[in-house]
């Protein structure tokens, strides 16, 4: 067998890569989760372009993992775990402790919304990456403590105090601002 025939056997048009789900299932899963995942990546990395790249890489690695999942929730948790690890790898690669915070485009909103976004960006930039991730998972995504522990790779028992401290820190950083959220 020559190199070319070996490669062509693998690259052949009929040879669909073996993923854990079919295209139709993937499309549905992607539609349900991609926007939320992008928001998570954009907020935890502070970089829209990086979030774009990591999103595609996350879905690719998720498909390549080829694991079987009990439920859509498990799939989603796995997806976020992959994204969290990729963001951490990228952070180590760039050796940047905290992102710039401002996410281009979000701050382009007008008035109170822009100010609120800028305040949040600045506050989050002062937190550790893991704190940002756990706060987002808990209070933006509504994930349970067990899910967050799995996604972030921390002990479930230690999550509660970590989350409490992170929440307190963020509340203090946002202190004095209108925390009402909706504008």
């Amino acid at each position, binding site marked *: *067998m020559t190199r070319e025939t070996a490669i062509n056997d693998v690259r052949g048009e009929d040879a669909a890569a073996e993923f854990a789900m079919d295209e139709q299932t993937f499309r549905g899963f992607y539609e349900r989760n991609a926007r939320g995942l992008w928001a998570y990546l954009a907020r935890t990395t502070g970089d829209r372009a990086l979030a774009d790249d990591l999103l595609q890489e996350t879905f*690719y690695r998720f498909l390549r993992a080829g694991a079987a999942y009990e439920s859509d929730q498990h799939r989603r948790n796995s997806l976020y775990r992959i994204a969290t690890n990729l963001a951490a790898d990228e952070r180590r690669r760039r050796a940047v402790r905290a992102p710039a915070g401002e996410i281009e485009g979000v701050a382009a909103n007008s008035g109170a919304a822009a100010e609120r976004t800028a305040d*949040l960006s600045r506050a989050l930039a002062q937190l550790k990456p893991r704190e940002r991730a756990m706060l987002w998972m808990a209070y933006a995504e509504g994930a349970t403590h067990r899910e967050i522990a799995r996604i972030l790779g921390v002990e479930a028992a230690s999550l509660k105090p970590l989350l409490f401290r992170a929440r307190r820190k963020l509340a203090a950083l946002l202190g004095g601002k209108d925390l009402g959220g909706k504008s």
Partner: protein
Amino acid sequence: MKPPECQWESEVLAAVLESRWPERAETELREHAAACPVCAEVAAVAAVLATDREDLRSLAALPDAGRVWWRAQWRARCEAAAVAGRPITAAQVLALACAAGLTGACFGATSEWFQAALREFSVPPLLAEHAVLALAIAAFLVLLPAAVLAAIWRD
């Protein structure tokens, strides 16, 4: 330090995440949150983050699911092809290294100029006696790592 907890914390969080907070939340829950520092903090932080999440979601310019699927398929095939081709690449570079070593050995054995140079530079007798073999080994030792490195780079 044990973090302070409140049994209504999850209710407040659910109300925020379901966009019921504060206007459409139960009056009792709102009154409780107004008096409970834990729930007030949860409501405040969750409201900011949940609103930000919605802002960000609206900004996301995502590629089509079909395109992501197609690109993943293509990449998986390329990676599989690279893995399939790796042993062949390794065999090719090994053969190249052997051929280069053999060529060097033949050159050493047949070149009068090379033999004369060995005599002129007062090479130790043992080495001079086995010069061809030494040259072949040296060539192999230099070329083999280079060939392996080339194979890895090629992948």
